[in-house]
């Protein structure tokens, strides 16, 4: 039986192959003539088929075989890539996961797709394409009228390369070949026998329906000499041949094949035992990387997190001890821990590419549905982010892209009227900027009209008719819950749910989102994400002996609380920061810390989006490396706390959720008498 590990490996590899297939098909749509891309698609299909057969997914293998056969017409130049071909190929690709899971195809969709695909390809012969260069094309495989004789032998050190004649025979049998015979004339005497070489040759009869190309495909990845002899009765008979037993039970190891050259037809799912292992798959370069389950990386990250905490504790103890030897050792540990931490975080980094494949697909489908011509450009595919972050970014980015395509990009007619190229451009850029990653989605669509936004916001009661808002603030309105300017609600977007969810998700990941737009020219949405979710830089503060951590990325500045604001007075809790009124929140009151405030208090100014609030604390302790621990299910309802961390002395400090604190402070600023204790 196939072990779970192997199945997992198959699944992992399948996912990669499907991604690669997606990429290949979509790129091919852009460059339909690119032979390299066609080959890549073909290779991916072939590997999927091979893997499927090896792991016993017979149905998958059969399906992909037909898919692949259709594509072979393109590869050999008998058919051309058209958007319709790509569309059908993508549909066929989507059937593959279902085939692996064993989902039945009740409506006959699968065979329908294949039929449509081969129909499209067969009508699309070069003859109808006058610009095709027929000279370069190999003669189309003429259908033979009668069965032919195929003779073949493996060349080179076949067994050393892990080639499996049994699988070849099985594949040929799958094509309908019969009457297999082994040719033992090539066998040397025992002392001359080279175990890595396959000295046997075979002949078989192939039916008329099998083309030369079908046979070529069987031998695609094999060093073999093969020949098809039209007349079945030709020279084949001159060699002494041994008839192959038909029974698949007849298992003979390779070594024994020398003494008794018996050929067996091995069903593809039989586990090979006496055979040499299959050589490394055709996907090269695997020597440099190791596949590691994600949970092992998580465990490593946890251990490193604890190490960072213990290291902080050790440093504190060493400093207090004033023992120079201990301090030197602690310093060394600090350095090593930092190195280990960085190395571990790097290991968790995955390139944006893993996401982008999905997006290409999405953009092309949505654009088709909307009947808009869109070219999707990706810059910085290799930019790396923490894997957890990548997973969580997918949904927000999908939403932004959909919005862009649906609302941002005009119809072809509109674009023509405004003098823009009919094909719109949507560009996704990812780049590192310090400890952040910037992900930007830019379109050259109609942009947003600040006046229209204002009118909509006024009519929805979000802002007062005479409110003075900057363009930035007006654009920010689209992140408000329930705000949508789309005149009609379409299947894709326009319900006004979404952008607020997008912002919440992004802020939940300690990132921020900005939107910028020039009316008539286009819109840019920028996401700023932290590089990692596991360890952040924090500002440790103290209120009534309790310590809290604020993420450094949201801290803007620290000011002293003016003496006249020590107790909440009539003037309200506002602070004048260089001419700007900033509402502030007394953490002591908000968190019911009790006690009396000390003589000097500090205000930490934090930002979320374009809103700033002050957080009044007793004391600033300093910055620290914070290993983030999630709060348990018993505390998930607390919106103002996003997690916890363990300090050098082993105690727990809570991490404050700045967006929610800001919301709390803003609410308090607007409605001064409203109690905070909800």
């Amino acid at each position, binding site marked *: 039986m196939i072990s779970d590990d192997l199945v997992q490996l198959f699944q992992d590899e399948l996912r990669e192959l499907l991604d690669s297939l997606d990429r290949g098909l979509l790129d091919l749509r852009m460059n339909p003539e690119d032979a390299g891309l066609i080959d890549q698609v073909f290779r991916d299909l072939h590997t999927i088929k091979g893997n499927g057969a090896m792991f016993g997914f017979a149905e998958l293998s059969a399906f992909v075989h037909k898919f692949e056969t259709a594509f072979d017409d393109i590869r050999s130049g008998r058919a051309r890539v058209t958007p319709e071909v790509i569309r059908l190929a993508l549909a066929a690709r989507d059937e593959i996961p279902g085939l692996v899971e064993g989902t039945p195809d009740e409506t006959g969709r699968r065979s329908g797709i294949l039929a449509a695909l081969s129909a499209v390809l067969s009508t699309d012969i070069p003859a109808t394409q006058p610009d095709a260069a027929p000279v370069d094309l190999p003669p189309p495989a003429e259908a033979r009228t009668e069965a032919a004789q195929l003779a073949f032998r493996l060349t080179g050190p076949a067994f050393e390369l892990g080639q499996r004649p049994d699988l070849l025979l099985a594949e040929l049998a799958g094509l309908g070949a019969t009457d297999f015979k082994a040719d033992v004339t090539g066998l040397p005497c025992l002392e001359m026998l080279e175990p890595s070489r396959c000295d046997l040759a075979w002949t078989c009869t192939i039916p008329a329906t099998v083309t030369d190309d079908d046979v070529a495909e069987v031998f695609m990845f094999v060093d073999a000499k093969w020949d098809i002899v039209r007349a079945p009765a030709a020279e084949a008979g001159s060699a002494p041949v041994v008839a192959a037993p038909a029974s698949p039970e007849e298992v003979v190891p390779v070594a024994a094949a020398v003494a008794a050259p018996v050929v067996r037809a091995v069903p593809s799912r039989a586990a090979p035992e006496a055979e040499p292992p299959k050589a490394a798959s055709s996907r090269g370069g695997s020597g440099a990387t190791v596949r590691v389950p994600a949970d092992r990386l998580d465990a490593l990250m946890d251990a490193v997190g604890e190490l960072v905490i213990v290291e902080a504790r050790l440093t504190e103890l060493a400093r207090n001890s004033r023992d120079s030897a201990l301090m030197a050792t602690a310093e060394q540990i600090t350095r090593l821990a930092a190195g280990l931490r960085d190395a571990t975080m790097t290991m968790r980094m995955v390139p944006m590419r893993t996401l982008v494949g999905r997006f290409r697909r999405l953009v092309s489908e949505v654009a088709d549905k909307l009947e808009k011509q869109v070219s999707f450009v990706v810059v910085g595919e290799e930019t790396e982010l923490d894997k957890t972050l990548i997973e969580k970014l997918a949904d927000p980015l999908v939403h932004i892209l959909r919005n862009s395509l649906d609302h941002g990009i005009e119809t072809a007619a509109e674009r023509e009227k405004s003098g823009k190229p009919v094909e719109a451009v949507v560009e996704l850029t990812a780049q590192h900027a310090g400890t952040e990653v910037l992900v930007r989605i830019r379109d050259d669509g109609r942009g947003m009209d600040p006046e229209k936004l204002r009118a909509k916001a006024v009519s929805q009661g979000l802002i007062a008719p005479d409110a003075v808002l900057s363009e930035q603030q007006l654009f920010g309105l689209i992140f408000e819950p329930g705000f949508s300017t789309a005149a009609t609600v379409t299947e894709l977007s326009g319900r006004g749910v979404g952008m607020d969810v997008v912002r919440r998700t992004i802020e939940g990941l300690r990132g921020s989102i900005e939107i910028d737009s020039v009316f008539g020219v286009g819109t840019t949405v920028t996401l700023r994400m932290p590089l990692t979710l596991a360890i952040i830089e924090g500002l440790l503060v103290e209120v009534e002996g309790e310590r809290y951590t604020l993420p450094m990325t949201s801290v803007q500045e620290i000011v002293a609380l003016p003496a006249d604001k020590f107790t909440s007075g009539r003037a309200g809790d506002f602070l004048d920061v260089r001419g700007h009124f900033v509402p502030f929140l007394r953490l002591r009151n908000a968190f019911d810390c009790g006690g009396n405030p000390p003589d000097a208090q500090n205000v930490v100014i934090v930002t979320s989006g374009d809103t700033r609030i002050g957080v009044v604390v007793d004391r600033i302790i300093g910055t620290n490396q914070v290993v983030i621990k999630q709060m348990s299910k018993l*505390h998930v309802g607390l919106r103002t706390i996003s997690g916890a961390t363990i300090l050098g002395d082993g*105690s727990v400090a809570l991490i404050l959720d700045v967006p929610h604190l800001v919301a709390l402070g803003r609410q308090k600023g607007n409605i001064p008498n409203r109690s905070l204790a909800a």
Partner: protein
Amino acid sequence: MNAMVTSLLKDSSEQRLTLVTLSIGAQMLAIPADVLYEVLDPLPTTRVPGAGDFARNVLNVRGSVVPLADLAFAMGLTRAPQSDRRRIMVLDVAIDGEPSTVVIEADEVHEVVSISRADILPVPATMATWPPDYLLGLYNGPQGFVLLPDLGQIFSTLATKSTAMTL
């Protein structure tokens, strides 16, 4: 956990249950030994502002931040005055089906006992002070009745309540 405890009580192939007994105030309780991860001396705690009365604090248990759940509050028991016999018990339970680590405080942890399944009695209907599904049953120990709290049920119910809070 809930399902596990329930099956522990119902699965007739296992005739005896291994329980750990503890006191909260004057009341003896027993929890299945296999949910108990360890018993520790009290550790410093950190208050969680805005958290409900059931889990006001968190603490650091071997590098993890774990909530300190107040079983006495959940079950309406009165705690004994502070003493050096007080212990914390680290439990692995499922809260809403998610495996979680929770710490409870016991005024005293007693011993590991083996109880025959047949000795466990259903909760009398007259014990109206209890939320009905917080108890799995009880048995008659040497010093009076010992209650078997349904930890999974208690934690799941109170987790749902705490999620409803707004601060």
